[in-house]
């Protein structure tokens, strides 16, 4: 259970061009997959501003000696949104609680993970910043990431739009090396995917789907 919770939290932070939840009464599934970081989660939008869900997160240290598995329940809250004709900006509150297991301690521990995400996007530019605390007894895996990118061209609603996105992220106690990942993002009204290779030459694949 702890593993799932951790996975969910990280996923919530990592993706999200559209934000870490869908529209009211929709389900959203997300995944963020790489050798040292594998997470999947799903949530349900109870309102246009609130979503609850659950997820799994596997994290491994850069030297491959230490790993974590988090299982958690999540809550996502859209605190504030600014809609203009050409842009959208958001402040998201992210929360999770679950159980984390590790290969350097026995049993599981209760982990909680409050966080905040800020994002701004137009049809051509995207920037975001996310921070999240991953805390449990004797564990501190606080996380931060920033993303920025641009689309190659504007696209109609029924066309696929390619983007170039760069993400830098870091997690205390597991990955003290700054991970930088340039990615190609494809956005369509039916799907959202990203693929890239980080500065450790590890592949990465992300997706979001609303149903």
């Amino acid at each position, binding site marked *: 259970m702890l593993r799932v919770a951790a996975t969910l939290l990280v996923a919530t932070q990592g993706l999200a*061009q*559209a*934000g870490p939840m*869908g*529209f*009211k*009464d*929709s389900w959203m599934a997300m995944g963020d997959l790489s050798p040292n970081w594998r997470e999947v989660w799903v949530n349900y939008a109870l309102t*246009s501003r609130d979503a609850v869900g659950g997820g799994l997160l596997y994290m491994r240290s850069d030297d491959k000696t230490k790993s974590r598995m988090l299982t958690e329940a999540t809550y996502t809250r*859209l605190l504030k*949104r*600014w*809609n*203009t*004709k*050409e*842009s*959208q900006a958001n402040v998201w509150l992210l929360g999770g609680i679950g159980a984390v297991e590790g290969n350097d301690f026995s049993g599981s521990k209760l982990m909680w993970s409050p966080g905040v995400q800020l994002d701004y*996007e*137009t*049809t051509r530019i995207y920037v975001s910043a996310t921070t999240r605390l991953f805390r449990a007894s004797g564990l501190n895996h606080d996380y931060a990431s920033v993303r920025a990118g641009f689309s190659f061209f*504007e*696209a*109609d*609603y*029924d*066309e696929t*739009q390619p983007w170039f996105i760069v993400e830098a992220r870091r997690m205390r106690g597991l990955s003290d090396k700054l991970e930088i990942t340039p990615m190609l993002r494809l*956005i*369509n*009204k*039916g*799907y*959202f995917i990203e693929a890239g290779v980080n500065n450790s030459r590890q592949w990465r694949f992300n997706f*979001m789907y*609303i149903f």
Partner: protein
Amino acid sequence: MISGIAQAAIQTIKVEVNGMVCAFCAQGIEKKMRSLTQTQDVYVDLKNKVVAVQLKDGQKLSHDTVKDLIKDAGYDVTKIETVGDSAQQIRATTRARK
């Protein structure tokens, strides 16, 4: 005789929407509108930030209902009107201007 053939006028609710910057995000608007029994067709124009909801013959849909659904999808309505063009005609007109 021809005048005796009743042909309902096309009614399309045309909405200007703020915040609509991404197709993946805006899919919520289309899904909400298509879920209505009154809806014949939906056109989303991401570049001009316009949503057009064409109603089935004889159907009624209030502007307030459309506004509420768009708000539930996470966006703000800045202008709403009912026009006599179909969603396909609005699409064709928009694309001809590009």
